[in-house]
């Protein structure tokens, strides 16, 4: 069967199969993408994925923008954890420019990135609950994503598409309220997460629905270049935070949970455990911050770090740098860099080629959703419709990241 073209058998009187358009606006897709499935009763015989419904040509747009203007584009990749995307892009440019960050900025970034990871995993795991019919788990834990958004709001003013931080640090220091909110979150979230786990982890119906469904072997996962919680659920202990530590992740003590069978239940457990580990990381970062000199929130690189507006209006140097950065006239070396961060869904990579011009010569996003999703149609063959749908939820396919 040709896997690239959708097959419609409806007008074929000989066919015993039913063509079902799952998407592009189906409640289960949680985004805009389509699967054309051939159904034999409730069983999927074959499926073809159609993507590209919200393709916005980000990689092409990025070729026409100075570095600092690319951050808002990264917001719209995996919009469930935009700060990780923002930070990943900042770190890529910093790698290109050879900027070493002060430890305090690294720790602040770790806090924000781990909060983003928690919010991403909250969405994925509660959506698995929602798609298996346990709506309460979804709405109950979801309020903590709101608390995370309040923390973002305190730091950068935005909630969903955060555009948080700058190349070279943060635009401003975290204020007292932000720290208070983070501490409050660290205190309240574990109890709610525990309740959430109590409701689902040992729930017989939930286990029946998820355990042993959509099993993936490590070989299959690696051959499809899976990464992130999906890969770890199959038993491969690959985590960018450990294998290629960035943002001082090497200073932290945390564990990388792995599964055994790669089924939906393992993915769910891996994500849950990662939330616990993220909480540990945030707590450690908060403790480490106490030993760092206060008030440092960006590297001392005036030629690359966008100065504050007051500086721009009152200081000639700052005005010059501001003008140069905004016009893309920074002195960036001609080089190719690849930098990857551990996003909510896996290895989120930025491959940047700079030819010394105002804008990147070429920028490629390695979007984990796009890569993980490639197996979906193939996996669905032989599955029941219900299983395919929770399989899709457990892969946490975010349309923005899928299509870029």
């Amino acid at each position, binding site marked *: 069967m040709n896997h690239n073209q959708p097959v419609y058998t409806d007008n074929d009187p000989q066919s015993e199969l039913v063509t079902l358009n799952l998407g592009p606006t189906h*409640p289960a897709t949680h985004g805009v993408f389509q699967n054309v499935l051939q159904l034999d009763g409730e069983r999927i015989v074959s499926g073809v994925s159609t993507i590209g419904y919200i393709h916005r040509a980000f990689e092409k747009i990025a070729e026409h923008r100075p570095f600092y203007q690319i951050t808002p584009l990264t917001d719209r990749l995996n919009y469930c954890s935009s700060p990780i995307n923002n930070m990943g892009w900042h770190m890529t440019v910093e790698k290109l420019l050879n900027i070493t960050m002060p430890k305090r900025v690294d720790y602040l970034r770790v806090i924000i990135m781990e909060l983003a990871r928690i919010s991403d995993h909250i969405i994925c795991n509660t959506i698995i609950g929602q798609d298996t*019919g346990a709506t309460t788990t979804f709405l*109950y834990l979801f309020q903590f994503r709101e608390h995370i958004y309040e923390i973002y709001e305190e730091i950068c003013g935005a909630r969903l598409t955060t555009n948080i931080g700058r190349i070279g640090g943060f635009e401003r220091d975290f204020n007292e309220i932000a720290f208070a909110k983070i501490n409050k979150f660290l205190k309240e979230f574990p109890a709610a997460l525990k309740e959430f786990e109590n409701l689902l982890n040992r*729930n017989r119906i939930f286990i*029946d*629905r998820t355990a042993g469904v959509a099993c993936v072997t490590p070989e299959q996962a690696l051959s499809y270049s899976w990464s992130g919680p999906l890969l770890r659920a199959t038993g491969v202990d690959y985590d960018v935070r450990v294998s290629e530590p960035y943002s001082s992740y090497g200073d932290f003590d945390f564990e990388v949970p792995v599964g055994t069978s790669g089924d939906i239940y393992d993915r769910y457990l891996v994500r849950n455990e990662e939330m616990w580990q993220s909480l540990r990381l945030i707590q450690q970062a908060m403790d480490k911050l106490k030993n760092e000199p206060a008030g440092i929130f960006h590297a001392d690189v005036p030629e690359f770090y966008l100065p504050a507006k007051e500086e721009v209006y009152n200081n000639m140097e700052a005005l010059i740098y501001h003008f140069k950065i905004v016009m893309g006239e920074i002195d960036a070396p001609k080089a190719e860099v690849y930098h990857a961060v551990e996003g909510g869904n896996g290895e989120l990579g930025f491959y940047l080629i700079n030819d010394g011009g105002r804008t990147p010569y070429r920028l490629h996003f390695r979007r984990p959703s796009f890569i993980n999703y490639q197996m979906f149609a193939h996996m669905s063959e032989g599955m029941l419709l219900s299983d395919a749908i929770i399989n899709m939820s457990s892969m946490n396919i975010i349309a923005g990241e899928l299509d870029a």
Partner: protein
Amino acid sequence: MDIAFVIEKFVLVAIIFGISLVIAMYSTYAERKVAAFLQDRLGPDRAGPAGMFQPLADGLKMFMKEEIIPSNASKWLFMVGPGLAMLTACIGTAVIPWGSDITIGGRVIPLQVTDINVGLLYIFGVVSLGVYGVMIGGWASNNKYSLLSAIRAASQNISYEIAMGLSIIALLLVTNTLSLREIVEGQHGWRWNVLYQPFGFILFMVCSFAETNRAPFDLPECETELIGGYHTEYSSMKLGFYLFAEYINMFVSSAVMATLYFGGYNYPGMDTMAVWLGPTWAPLFGMAIFFVKIFVFIFFFMWVRWTIPRFRYDQLMNLGWKVLIPLAIANIVVTAVVIGIIEGF
């Protein structure tokens, strides 16, 4: 048949019909409030004090909405579907004894529309018909999701009716009658059937969940797989009828469970209360007790819905055919043997 009898029955029918509609209406409100309570939210609170008028606003909205009939749907069947669902949901209340005989102005009026001697079979018949509304609606919509949902609903209802019927047979061995009135009278005071048939009750309750398409058996309308299920294509009050029918079904199921297993309008110390309250107020008090029991069951339905995930289609079938039916048969055998031993000696 005197004219007073006709008027009396007509009034009773009107009252019961009204009560079931109001309860179904406020069940939607209760469902949202219970869900909100379980999910740490507020629930509807805009329309009136604590959102009390929300069901009225929803009803009004349903009537005002544009009615859309898909051009490739079977128009006539498309309209019959919700009507049938509503009709079968409503007529189930006809045989339920709401209270003992009430005396008003020297006239004895039974608080039951009709006491037919096959009341239980009637209930079963009506409940079985209920699936036709869903099937016809799903089929007539000419939508694949609706069709899948209709198929699920049909096979689910047929499978669980068998287990339900078998769990009732054990109860009939205990009660020796099919008339709901006599079943209730037999549970006078504290002699509730659930004490004799606890296992049968659990089986019956599980099947009731499946028969009313409530979670965890709400496969026909599981929104994340089948969008809206059989009512995907419906809008305006036709959709309202389907949603309403579901709540009336829940109400009737709760009433049947309370009648069969929890003594209906019987309560401990009812004889003393009957003397104390007199022949007019005592039956009404019994009726109030009956409604309290119904509300407890309705709450339980909601509690379950907002707590546990739903089954997969094949797991549902396995549970019905491989677990519930054998258990129900075992329950019959054990009950029969025990009754035989007790009556034999």
